[in-house]
């Protein structure tokens, strides 16, 4: 059962991960997100992690896989709010999440997707 609310606004799916999830919970979140994205034909998906204290290699891999899957579905995938301690931890671990488009805040990510001059189509 997925316990992260997934909101739909202006053709965009938004989810904020605010509690630490078990591996199984991460996978149910992933599967619900992909199903919703497929049904709604969105412009993009934004995942906010601004209150998440730990992103370990498992979570990092799921986020990286999600990027690929959401892009294959024809939508943009944006991650926002990675805490400084989390980003330095990921780099030191050797998890280079270079293929994920990241933004400093939910607002910036949202504005990017809704503005007309964005590079995504």
């Amino acid at each position: 059962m997925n316990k992260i609310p997934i909101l739909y606004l202006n053709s965009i799916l938004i989810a904020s991960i605010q509690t630490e999830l078990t591996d199984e919970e991460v996978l149910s979140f992933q599967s619900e997100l992909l199903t919703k994205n497929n049904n709604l034909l969105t412009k993009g998906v934004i995942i906010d992690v601004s209150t998440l204290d730990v992103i370990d290699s498992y979570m990092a891999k799921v986020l990286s896989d999600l990027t690929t899957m959401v892009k294959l579905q024809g939508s943009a995938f944006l991650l926002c709010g990675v805490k400084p301690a989390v980003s330095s931890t990921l780099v030191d671990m050797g998890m280079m999440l270079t293929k994920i488009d990241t933004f400093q805040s939910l607002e910036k990510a949202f504005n990017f997707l809704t503005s007309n001059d964005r590079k995504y189509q």
Partner: protein
Amino acid sequence: MDKYCLNEIDSVPIKCTQDIVISRQKGRELARKSGFSVSEQTRFATAISEITRNVLTYATEGDCHLFENNLDGYHMVIAQIVDQGPGIDNPKLAMSDGYSTGHGLGLGLPGAKRLVHELNIDSTPGKTIVEIIIKRRVYG
């Protein structure tokens, strides 16, 4: 690994993935209470997450013990993750980036080592202890 007299603060049984979350939260909280920075708390918690996940992947179950210790002017927080599984065949190889006997990226152990001040492996078939330590200098 029994070189110091350790003060055990907490212990978490590792049986399911929820216990990974509990272990790292308790580790983080202990690091916070012991005066470590947010960055050090995060690194310690992430290392615990990697090593406790290995227990579920390679050994079915185990325990995560948390200790505090003062030694030679350092305050340390220690996590010992113990399991009764098959053991780590070649600890040296297991510590190299990209080495995995499973389907992982092989970043768990070497990555965790880069996040803490010390990582020690003591493994034989039937008993594996992975110990991670963060320390900070105390004055006075």
